[in-house]
Each structure stands twice: as structure tokens, then as C-alpha cells.
């Protein structure tokens, strides 16, 4: 069975991309519910319980609330930047989404990734466009004319600047090992052995840097509720806040996908399992998404296990620990490559 040619038409791929956009919106809503329930569980609370079974409809209620809240722009705010900032953040996460495959269909041993597009340099592209989100965060903070927001944004800058470099070097190490910058080929290259076993240091560096990139605890210095109110997003209310909030959760899901694609083997399964057509269509994607959920679970649990770092500690970790470790990992990968392993 061959896939029809029309599926490779760029316009059709664009429509697939829009479907993936809606899917990730639902996914982000589910992730918010998941995080609230899990956090409650860790703190021995119930979390949302009253809306639907186990609070499943809580997110619908929240969405209705956000949609019917008045849109307030503070009078001291820079109106243009204030309005443009959520657009910037949404644009950034959705540009990342374009290049990330959400799984794959394997038919007769051929792999067709479920993605809006397949580029030769997708990993470089992802790194480039995900860096745009920091501009969105700074626009939020600068436009709101709020001292605490601006403090949060400054810390955000210092953090992102530090973690972009180890992130880049560990991605290069992966690219060397896979011999490609195409994220699909990188996932395929991990067929017998996942990269997390081939370069464990690289995985640790990448994971920590990614946590910082996503602004998750222990790296949420831009928010740090205890000292900066709500950090960079304090002045935002209603749906404008909702957009920024959702952008962060979409970032979380996409980041977890990136971890699975680059280090945890993507959708690769033993060939026996995917030889059957129906299994080949279903299993790889299910397997992939299962791993993504596990990574998210880990990230959320880490939130309640590790206290937030001080900003000077954060900067020190990136420049004095992660950067040398990333270079060490690069040396390890070069050595493996020269030995032909």
C-alpha cells in the first residue's frame, strides 16, 4: 500500500499542520488538567473535582471564564507592544510545532512522519524559532510598565542566554551521531540503541538546558511567584493572560517531544511489531506519545521535588557546569565517531 501523492502536496501538509495545531491545543488543555491533578496528588490534595468526573471539565470552565472576562490594558502600558506580545509568543511556539513530527506511520517498512513539513535542517530551524519566544516574554514585561515584570524578564534574559549555548552544543552532538540535522532522520538513527545510552552526559545537559528553556521549575526565575508576584505576566488578565499561559504549556509539550525525538528513540519499535499494516499505523505514534507523556510526568514531578534556584546559581550552573559538560560530551561523541562506533 502506497500513500497517495496528494499527501505530499504542501497545501495539504499545511492543513495537516493546522490539525496538529488544534490537537496540541487540546493537548495543552489536557496538560494543564494533568499538571493540576498531579500537583494536587503530590501535595495530598484532590485538585479540581467538581466539574465533571475528576474535574475533567475544569478546563472547559476555565476557557469559558477566560472568554467572558473583560480585556484590560493598563493605561501606563505600551499598547502596541502589549497587544503584540501574545501574538509573538504564539507565533514562536507554532513555528516550532511545524517542524516537529507527532509520531509516524510505518507501512511496508517505510516511515511517514506525521508532521506539517519535513525539512533538511529542522533541528537548526527549531532552535532558531524557539529562541523567538524570549522576545515575546520581554515584550510582555516591558510593555506592562511593571517593575516586577521587568525584573522577571531581566532574569529570563540572563537565563536564556546561558542555556542556549549548552543546548546548542548537545544538539550538535546528536547531529554528529545521527549524521543529519533532519529531526526525522535523527529519530530513525536511534533504531537499535537510543542516544540516551550512547551519550548520557549529553542527555543530562540537554534536559536541564531544555527545562531552563521552557521556564519550568526549578528554572522559573521569570515567574518566581513568591518574590515577583506573577513575574513577567503580572499585568495580563483574562484571555491575554490565557494566550501567554497556553503558549507556555504548548512549549512544554513540544519540549517533551523534542526530548523523546532526540534522545529517547522517537517512535522506533522492533520491526516485528510494525510489519502488520494496522499495527504499523497505530503503534509507533502511540508508543511515541506514551514516552512524551512520561517525560511530561517527570518534568511536572520535578517541579515539586526541586526548589527554585537563585538567579546567580542559575547563571553559574549554565556557564560553569553545563558548558564544560556539553563540550566534554562533544569530545566523547567525536571519539566515538573516530572509532567508528
Amino acid at each position, binding site marked *: 500500500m502506497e500513500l497517495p501523492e496528494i499527501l505530499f502536496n*504542501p497545501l495539504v*501538509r*499545511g*492543513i495537516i*499542520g*493546522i490539525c496538529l*495545531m488544534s490537537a496540541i491545543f487540546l493537548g495543552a488543555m489536557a496538560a494543564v488538567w494533568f499538571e493540576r491533578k498531579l500537583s494536587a496528588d503530590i501535595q495530598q490534595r484532590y485538585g479540581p473535582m467538581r466539574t465533571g468526573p475528576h474535574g475533567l471539565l475544569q478546563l472547559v470552565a476555565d476557557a469559558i471564564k*477566560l*472568554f*467572558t*472576562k*473583560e*480585556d484590560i*490594558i*493598563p493605561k*501606563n502600558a505600551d499598547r502596541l507592544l502589549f497587544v503584540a506580545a*501574545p501574538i509573538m509568543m*504564539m*507565533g514562536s511556539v*507554532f*513555528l516550532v*510545532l*511545524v*517542524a516537529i513530527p507527532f509520531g509516524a506511520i510505518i507501512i511496508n517498512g517505510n516511515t511517514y512522519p506525521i508532521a*506539517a*513539513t519535513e*525539512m*533538511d535542517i529542522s533541528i537548526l530551524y527549531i532552535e532558531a524559532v524557539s529562541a523567538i519566544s524570549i522576545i515575546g516574554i520581554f515584550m510582555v514585561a516591558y510593555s*506592562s*510598565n*511593571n*517593575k*516586577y*515584570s521587568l525584573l522577571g524578564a*531581566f532574569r529570563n*534574559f540572563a537565563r536564556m542566554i*546561558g542555556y*542556549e*549555548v549548552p543546548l*546548542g552544543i548537545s544538539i*550538535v552532538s546528536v*547531529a*554528529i551521531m545521527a*549524521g543529519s*540535522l533532519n529531526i526525522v532522520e535523527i529519530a530513525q538513527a536511534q533504531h537499535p540503541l537510543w542516544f540516551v545510552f550512547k551519550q548520557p552526559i549529553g542527555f543530562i545537559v540537554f534536559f536541564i538546558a531544555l527545562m531552563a528553556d521552557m521556564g519550568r521549575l526549578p528554572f522559573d526565575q521569570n515567574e518566581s511567584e513568591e518574590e515577583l*508576584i506573577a513575574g513577567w505576566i*503580572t*499585568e495580563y488578565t*483574562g*484571555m*491575554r493572560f490565557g*494566550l501567554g499561559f497556553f503558549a507556555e504549556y504548548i512549549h512544554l509539550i513540544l519540549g517533551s517531544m523534542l526530548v523523546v525525538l532526540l534522545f529517547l528513540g522517537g517512535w522506533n519499535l522492533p520491526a516485528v511489531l510494525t510489519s502488520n499494516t494496522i499495527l504499523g499505523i497505530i503503534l509507533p505514534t502511540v508508543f511515541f506519545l506514551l514516552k512524551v507523556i512520561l517525560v511530561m510526568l517527570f518534568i511536572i514531578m520535578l517541579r515539586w521535588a526541586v526548589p527554585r534556584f537563585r538567579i546567580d546559581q542559575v*547563571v*553559574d550552573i549554565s*556557564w560553569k557546569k553545563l*558548558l564544560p559538560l556539553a563540550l566534554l560530551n*562533544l569530545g566523547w561523541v*567525536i571519539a566515538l*565517531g*573516530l572509532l567508528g562506533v
Partner: protein
Amino acid sequence: MSGIIDISNIIYSYIPVAIILVVALMMPPLTMFLVKSLSPRSKAAAKYDTYEAGSVPIGDARIQFNVEYYLYAIAFVLFDIEVLFLYPWAMIFQGHGITEIATVEMLVFIFVVLFGYVYLLKKEALKWQ
């Protein structure tokens, strides 16, 4: 990875990017339009004040960056460009018959940058004040 690159393929792979970008940029304004038509509106002057910490904010919040951020920014530019140079090398690392020579050249490059890194550390330029 053949020598000949098909330009039309590259352009095709970016058409979905353009489509998604347009949709993504349109989404927040559309959402806000929906909010405007659904939400109540009232004009109370206090509502439009800056919230900040709950009390009336003193002075303007837009201050200049502390100069120490620039040190980090310069170091960042230095190392990020280094990483950019690593990408093309990563692509030719295997299967092009020039692995050894390319690696030696890249190691020399990395050591030069590492020298700068050690210098930064010794100067305590990367120390948060």
C-alpha cells in the same frame, strides 16, 4: 545527502511554515475579538491602573539594563556563533572521507574558543554580582 540540492523541494518544505505562521498570527487577534464581543465592559478608572504590587506604583518601571548583563550577552554571542560553526562540520563528520582532517581543524577551533572561555572565568566576567 546527495551533492545536488533540489531548490523546489526546499521551497515546498517551507510552504506549510508560511501557512501555519499566518494562522498562528491571526489566532490571538481573532480570540481577542471574540473576547471583546462576549465580555462585559465597565469604565472604572481604578481598573486601568498598573497593578504591580497592589499599591500605587512609584515612578516609571522602564529602567536600563544593568551593565553586567552585557558581559553575559557578549559571551553568549561568542559561544553561540561557535555553536553555529559546529553545525556544518557536524554534517560532514561522517561519510565524506574527511573526518580526521575536519575534526583536527574543528578541535583547534574549539580550543581557541576554550582559551577565551578560561580567560573569561579567570577574569571573573561570568560571576554574578
